[in-house]
C-alpha cells in the first residue's frame, strides 16, 4: 500500500519532470540561454583574467573562488563530523579486515601495490599542480591520493599505513589546508584589493603572473590535501570501527 502511494507520487513527479524537460532548451546547441549570458566573457577572457588556461579552473578558483572556499569548508565540516562521530575513546592500535584475515594478501599484490602507489601519488601530484592547464585540479588529485592510500591499506593493513600516515595529523592538515585557502583570501585584503583576488596590485611585470600562479597553486594544493584527507580519514575511521564487538544496546 505504502509502496503504491510512493509509486503514484513518483509518477506525478516524473510527469512533472518530463514536462519540464520537454520544455528545456535543446541539448548540444551552442546558442542556449546558458551559453549566451555569462559564459562568453569567461571563454573570451578567462585565461588572462583568471590566470589559468583551463577555464574551468579559472571559474572554480577565481570567478567563483568563494564557492570553492565553501567547498573546502564542506570537506572540513564533513571531516569534523566523521571524526566526531566515529572516533572512539580508546586510542590503541586497531586492525583492519586485512590484518585479521586468515588469507594474507599475496606477495604479488603487495609488490604490485608497493610499486604502483608511488606512481599513483606522482600522478596525483601532477593532476593537482597541472590543474590550471589541463583537465585536473585539486580535488581530483586529492581523490587519487586518497585512493592510493586506501589501496595501500587494503594490501598492507591498517598499522602499516597509519605508521606512514599518522592519524593525529589529519585534523591539523585539514585545518592548515583551509587556513591556506583563507590566507590567500586575506592576502588580497592585505594588499588593498578584494577578498580572494589573485592579481595583486603593486607588483609589476612578470612577478604578477608568478605570484598569481603561486597563489593558485597554494589553493589547489590546499583543496587537494583537504580532499585526500577526507577520503583517507573516512576509510580509516570506518576500518577502525570495523572490529568492535557487536553489542547492540537495545533495551
Amino acid at each position: 500500500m505504502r509502496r503504491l502511494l510512493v509509486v503514484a507520487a513518483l509518477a506525478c513527479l516524473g510527469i512533472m519532470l518530463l514536462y519540464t524537460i520537454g520544455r528545456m532548451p535543446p541539448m548540444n546547441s551552442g546558442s542556449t540561454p546558458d551559453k549566451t549570458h555569462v559564459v562568453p566573457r569567461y571563454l573570451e577572457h578567462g585565461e588572462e583574467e583568471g590566470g589559468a588556461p583551463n577555464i574551468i579552473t579559472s571559474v572554480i578558483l577565481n570567478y567563483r573562488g568563494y564557492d570553492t572556499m565553501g567547498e573546502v569548508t564542506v570537506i572540513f565540516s564533513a571531516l569534523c563530523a566523521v571524526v566526531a562521530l566515529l572516533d572512539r575513546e580508546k586510542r590503541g592500535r586497531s586492525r583492519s579486515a586485512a590484518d585479521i584475515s586468515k588469507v594474507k594478501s599475496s606477495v604479488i599484490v603487495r609488490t604490485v601495490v608497493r610499486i604502483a602507489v608511488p606512481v599513483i601519488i606522482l600522478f596525483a601530484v601532477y593532476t593537482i599542480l597541472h590543474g590550471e592547464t589541463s583537465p585536473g585540479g585539486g580535488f581530483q588529485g586529492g581523490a587519487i591520493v586518497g585512493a592510493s592510500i586506501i589501496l595501500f591499506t587494503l594490501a598492507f593493513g591498517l598499522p602499516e599505513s597509519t605508521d606512514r600516515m599518522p592519524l593525529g595529523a589529519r585534523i591539523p592538515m585539514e585545518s592548515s589546508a583551509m587556513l591556506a585557502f583563507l590566507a590567500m583570501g586575506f592576502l588580497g585584503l592585505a594588499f588593498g584589493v578584494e577578498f580572494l583576488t589573485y592579481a595583486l596590485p603593486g607588483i609589476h611585470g612578470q612577478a604578477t603572473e608568478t605570484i598569481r600562479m603561486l597563489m593558485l597553486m597554494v589553493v589547489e594544493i590546499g583543496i587537494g590535501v583537504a580532499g585526500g584527507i577526507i577520503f583517507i580519514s573516512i576509510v580509516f575511521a570506518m576500518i577502525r570501527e570495523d572490529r568492535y564487538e557487536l553489542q547492540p544496546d537495545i533495551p
Partner: protein
Amino acid sequence: MNLAARQPVLLVAVPLVFAATCPLWGMWKRRICFYWALGGMSVTAFLAWSLIGKVSQKAPLTYNVSGWRPPWGIQIRIDTVGLLLACTITAMSILLLLYSYRYVEKEIPTQRIVYYYTLLLLIFTAMLGCSVTGDLFNFFVFMEIFSITSYALVAISGERRAIRAALKYLLMGATSSLTVLLAISFLYSVTGSLNMVDIGQVLERMGRTSSPYLPVAAAAMIFFIAGFCVKAAVFPVHVWLPEAHSIAPSPVSALLSALVIKMGVLGIIRTLFTVYGRGFSSFSEVWGALATVLSWAAALSIPVAAIMAIMQTDLKVMIAYSSVVHVGYIVLGISVLSVQGFAGGLFNIVAHAMGKGCFFLVAGIIIYKHGFRRIDDLKGLGRSMPVTAGAFAIASLSIVGLPPSAGFIAKWNILYGCLQQSQYIQVVLALFGSMLSAVYCFKVVYYMFFTGSNVGAKMDEGPMTMLIPVTLLAAGTVFFGIFSALLMPTLSNAARVLLAR
C-alpha cells in the same frame, strides 16, 4: 586598507578562520576551544551589528568577492532580511556558546567537545554565509555546510535515539538539498546565470519576450519551494523535525529551532521574492498558486502541530512541535503577500528565535540539573528553580503570542496581513492554533508553578553560564514586545520593497 568596505566578506571569512583553527587549539588544550569560539563569534557579532543602519532593502550593501562584478562573480548582498538574520544568528551564537560551556561536560563525550565547538562555529558561519549571499549556488553550498554540520550536531551525543534521529534528518535533508540543486540546474539552463538579482532580471526579460522556456523556470520554482519547505519544516514535510530537535543536546536543539529552520524560510523568501519577484508577471499563476498553497499549508500546520504538541509527554518533543507551529506563522505571514503580514513574519523569525531558544535552553537546564525530560516530572520546579521556570513562563507568553511579548506583535501583524488579503479562514485557524498553543505552554508552566510540594524546596538553580542566556532571551521577548518599533518600521520597508512589483 579599507576594512569597513570589506565588512560583508569578513562576516563570513572571520568566523571561518576561527573555525579552521579551533581544532588546532583543541589538540593543545580542550578548554581553549570554548574561549576561542566565544571570541570568534564576538568579533563576528561586532561585525554584523555594526552594519545596522547602513543597510536597507532598497539599497543593500554589496560586495563583489574577488572583485568580479555580478553576474560574473559571486556577490555578497546584505539586505534588511539578511542583516536581520545575521544579527540574530550572531547574537544567539554568543548566548548558545556561553550556555554550552557547562552543558557539554554532561551530555557530550569528552573527546568530542573540540569538534562540538568547531561544528558550532562552522554552522554559524554557514548560516551567516546563507544570509548574506546574493548567489543562488553559493546559497546551496552554505546550505549544505549547515546541513552537514547539523546532522553531526544532532548525533554528537552518541545516544541511540540521537543517531537514529540524525539519520532520519539526513535522509530528508539530503533529498531536499538535491531538490534545490535540481531547481538550480533547471533555472541555470534557462537563464544562464546564478546571481539572484540577475536571474530576476533575466526572467523579467524572458517574460517580456515571452520566451518558450518560461515553464522550466516555473517548474524550477516549484522544486525550490518544495526543497526549502523541507528545510524549514513546513507542515506536511516536517516529520524529521520533532525527533531531531528533541534528541539533540539542548543548545543544539535551540540552535536548530531558533536559527537553522529559518534558513529554509530565508530560501523561500529569496526564491519567491528576490529571484522570481521581478519576473512576477510572467508566472503570476504558478507564483500565486504556490503562495496560496504555502499559506494554506502554513495555516493548517498551526492548529495541527499545536494539537500534536499538546499530546506529547516529553518536554523537548513538545517544544519541537511548537517550532512547527511557529514556522507555520512565519510562512503564513510571508505567503499572504501583504506588507504587514510579511513584516510580521520577519519579526516572528526574531521573536521565535528568542522564545524557542529560551524554551530549549530551559529544558536543557532541567536535564542538566535533574535529568528530567517528562512534563509530569516538572512538578514544583518553579520553587526550586525560580529563575529558570520564570524564564520559561515569560518565554511562553511569546510562544503563545500573548501581549506584551514579541510573539504577540508578530502574530498581530501576521493576522492583520491575512485580514488585508481577506484570508479569513487563515485568521481563524491561526487564532485557534494560538489558543491550542496556550494549552501546551501553560500546561508546563502549571506543572512548574502550581503543583507539587511547596515545603522544603530549596533553591537549586543551574550554573550562571546557563542562567544568563536564558534570562536574556526571556527578557528579549518582552523587550521586543514593548519596543517593537525598533524593528517593525525597518521590516515593513523591507517587506514593501520585496512585495513591490
